[in-house]
């Protein structure tokens, strides 16, 4: 079984190409074992 999560979140304005503190960043890597309640991103 699989869960696919799709969501809107703040991102860098591509024209500036500068990441800011308000951008969404994933905190996981591919292949990571993750458990309910652990952050996937901030």
């Amino acid at each position, binding site marked *: 079984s699989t869960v696919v999560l*799709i969501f809107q979140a703040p991102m860098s304005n*591509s024209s500036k190409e500068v990441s800011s503190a308000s951008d969404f960043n994933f905190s996981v890597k591919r292949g990571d074992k993750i458990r309910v309640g652990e*952050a996937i991103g901030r």
Partner: protein
Amino acid sequence: STNSSEGNSFLVPGATAATILMLGALHARRLYEDKKLEEARDKGIDMEFKPDVKATVMRFLPLRSISRCWGYLSSIELPIWLRPHVYKAWARAFHSNLEEASLPLDHYASLRDFFVRSLKEGSRPMDADPKCLVSPADGIVMRFGEIKGAGAMIEQVKGFSYSAISLLGTNSALPLIKEDNSSEDDSCFEFTSKLERKRSWWKVSLASPEVRDPAQRPVKGLFYCVIYLGLGDYHRIHSPADWNVSVRRHFPGRLFPVNERAARTIGNLYIENERVVLEGRWREGFMAMAAVGATNIGSIDLFIEPDFRTNRPMKTKLLFNSKPEERPYEPTNTGVALRKGDEVAAFNMG
């Protein structure tokens, strides 16, 4: 008659040994392939999409019936003395943590009950950061990233992608992606409850024109994360954030396996399989969660809609109907409010 019985007594052990050897060889090959795949993943090598004969054959198998049959077998009540042995064997084979189970092992009447077990209080502490999204399930992160381009495509594996709208349904409120890969955002307020939404409405109405200037709003992107649940994993789904679910869609379909190998060999895997989609909004805008079934895990229960059932016998033409069964949640505009960590759904055996 004597000749025939002599022949049988020779053939039966021979055939059994040959079958065991064949199954052993297949299992060894599978383990070897899995190891190779894991090593490649560790090295950062992306395996490409490559359909094979097995994937083609799978299309002709009655996987939904097989899944229901498996569900029936796994729900047979086991004698109390046998239960701990069966569940411990399962845990050894699929690396489950039995210490987390909320009940003693002999309280689970069947393998099916054991499979959807709840956990002891405090086994899954929620990340307290209000700005984070938490994992809705235990499993392996298969893919994640930003959804880019006008087609809003999600990569299944390198060389094969599917559209987010096919996964969620054509009625989805998925925001359109602009040329710079940002997404449309029709709201500049947060809401997690009706009351909060009302308050935010006042905030927006009374705000000065500078605050409502679109240039001041943060640019929003669309992101995705795919989590694969193995057989030994805890199989309940939780809310990844505070959000409001406004609609549920059910897509009947096939029940292909969804492991890494299947993702690499079966095209459109996630949009051909039976799935349940919950859609709504969180503080940053759109949010949707799709629970995709598989052969072993054929049915999905929704705690927010207890009467709802999946993996029922169905006519073939209805199975692949592109129009899902849709149910909007009351009250209109807000739907069901979920808090981060709330139990939302469970994957059942068969």
